[in-house]
């Protein structure tokens, strides 16, 4: 029973982990990207479109291509969204909140529009896209997982994207804290003027970190559709997971390594109501509030304790214009 709960918590948490790792990288460059929910939708639908077209084109799926095509489509789609955001906020110095929210509207629109329209390309009576074949490949487990009892359930029972999420978070954590590139990136987020004076190419760092961050966040959407939802696209099915990822960024005080644990905790809060006996639907709704309440508590506590290393990047949300003093 406990093993199942943990297993489901990890599966719930993985999209959030992708989203928050991406958002942390972006925020470290001083950009609050509120477009993450939209980017995750676009990542998901790009992957779905790629997989759908590939499934339509051949009778026999090549397992490698069946994973590779959606993956590449997802990365390209979500990076493109990141590029729109960068162009507007970095090059044109637009307001980050407004741009991000517009990006979310746009991205969710794209996701739901194409999610609803792709199905019209084929003559079927099925109400929604179902990519079960591709999904099975995405969900392939390590062969010996189910022979190891609870240990296998907890650690080895997931599709490969779960491990990718954890590895990406660990790599991001390493890059941010232990490398020169990470040091430069953090300095850009803390004080772009100083970074610029030190000869760091601020624009380049902002562009690269936001685009990579968006691509990582997009993978969260892909994981949700292909693995968690068994390859079935349903409009608005992704729900408010995008906003939860932004909450997770605060919860993990801008540390990708902490957000691995945070994502599992959020996933745990998400699935726990189903395991409480005799729970009513309305109480379940109140439970869904918990991740946000916990996040606010963390935000309040970190600001009261006022420790330098637990604060948001100092220039978060501010546009940088070299000639402005």
């Amino acid at each position, binding site marked *: 029973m406990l093993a199942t709960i943990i297993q489901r918590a990890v599966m719930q948490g993985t999209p959030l982990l992708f989203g928050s790792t991406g958002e942390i990288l972006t925020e470290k460059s001083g950009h*609050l990207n*509120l477009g993450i929910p939209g980017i995750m939708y676009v990542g998901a639908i790009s992957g779905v479109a790629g997989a759908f077209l590939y499934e339509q084109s051949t009778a026999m799926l090549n397992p490698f291509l069946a994973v590779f095509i959606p993956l590449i489509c997802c990365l390209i789609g979500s990076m493109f969204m990141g590029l*729109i955001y960068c162009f*507007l906020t970095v*090059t*044109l*110095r*637009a*307001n980050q*909140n*407004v*741009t991000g*929210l*517009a*990006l*979310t*509207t*746009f*991205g*969710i*629109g*794209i*996701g*739901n*529009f194409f*999610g*609803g*329209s792709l199905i019209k390309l084929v003559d079927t009576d099925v109400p929604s896209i179902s990519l079960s074949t591709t999904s099975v490949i995405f969900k392939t487990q390590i062969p010996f997982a189910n022979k190891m009892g609870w240990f296998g359930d907890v650690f080895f029972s997931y599709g490969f994207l779960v491990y990718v999420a954890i590895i990406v978070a660990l790599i991001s954590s390493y890059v941010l804290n232990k490398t020169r590139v990470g040091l430069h990136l953090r300095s850009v987020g803390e004080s772009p003027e100083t970074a610029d004076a030190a000869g760091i*190419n601020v*624009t*380049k760092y902002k*562009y690269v970190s936001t685009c990579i961050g968006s691509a990582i966040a997009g993978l969260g959407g892909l994981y949700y559709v292909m693995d968690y939802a068994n390859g079935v696209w349903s*409009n608005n099915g992704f729900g*408010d997971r995008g*906003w939860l990822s*932004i*909450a997770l960024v*605060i919860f993990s005080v801008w540390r990708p390594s902490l957000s691995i644990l945070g994502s599992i905790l959020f996933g745990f809060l998400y699935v726990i109501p189903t395991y409480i006996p005799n729970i*009513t*639907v*309305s109480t379940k*709704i*109140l439970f*869904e*509030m918990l991740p*946000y*309440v916990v*996040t*606010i508590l963390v*935000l*309040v506590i970190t*600001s*009261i304790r*006022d420790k330098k290393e637990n604060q*948001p990047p100092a220039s978060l*949300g501010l546009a940088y*214009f*070299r*000639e*402005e003093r």
Partner: protein
Amino acid sequence: MNKLTNAVWNCFGKASIHIAKRDDIAWWKSWIIRVISVVMALIVCGFLTVALTDLNPIDVYVTMIKGAVGTPRLVWNLLQNTAILLCVSLAVTPAFKMRFWNIGAEGQVLIGGLATATCMIFLGEVVPGPVLIPMMFVISVIAGAFWAFIPAFFKARFNSNETLFTLMMNYIAIQIVAYFTLEWSVPKGSGTPRTLEFGQLPMLFGQKYLINIIVVILITVLMYIYLKYTKQGYEISVVGESENTARYIGINVKKVILRTMAISGAVCGIAGFLLVAGTDHSLKSDTAGGRGFTAIMVSWLAKFHPGFMVLTSLLIVFLEKGASKISEVYRLNSSFSDIITGIIIFFIIGSEFFINYKIKSNRKSKEEN
């Protein structure tokens, strides 16, 4: 290789062109830039529509206009939606002028609506209408102000990040409202929201939405006066320009933050009141319908000016209504309107750059020297 990439990056920043801040721009020039950007956006949307649907874009735009203002009922609908969006946009404006990023309007509207619905359900049968409606109004205003006051308190006292705080408060409000919607639904637990019969706003001259529109016009005028001609409005501008200056000239910054956010939340509360008592006569978790977020764009696009906000909110609602008509007529997915709105906002956001900055060619300025 490294040299090459650096050269590419430099193109954005300094190589052959040079970007400078404009001191001032004639108002007509800035509006020409904005109009050009909207036209360009419509052209891009036209191409997109053709690519996706093989339809004649002009037909599509005609359908769009018909869908938004084709019949008197649609016009009233358009006006009422504009009024509510305008109300929320006005609400977030004082906070934005202070550079306090209140993106929690969605939640503040919902809590205001929840307060209204609570009054309508529990006091509806006890208190007569003429007393009930003012009571509902006052309680919603207090509820909205309270919801906005929480993040403001932590911002003023501990400097918590207000953008993230208000964002999180939205989802707490949404879940609370979802909980009560379910508790109050008829039959209980079914999820069908209860129709609130007592305390509905009266019709004026046979028009259901007229009272909403009048209230919002009143708020627009008051907000304009408040921001432009009162001492408090001036204090907001000073805090927004520079907190240090404000402190130096003796403005109590904390007090201004708390007061302004309470006002911001209070006006959101009014929007919630109008939505529940005047428009929907019911409460759902999507009663605010994303307006809290759209309002941020509306307010920003209007440069925080209440007068221009009438135009920008009308533009956004017009696009939404028109695009949803397109999707209905041509049997597209209803999310088509979100894509169109998104593209148009991108273009307007982008155009602000050309209003605020000018691009000079470096070579030319050297020749001048």
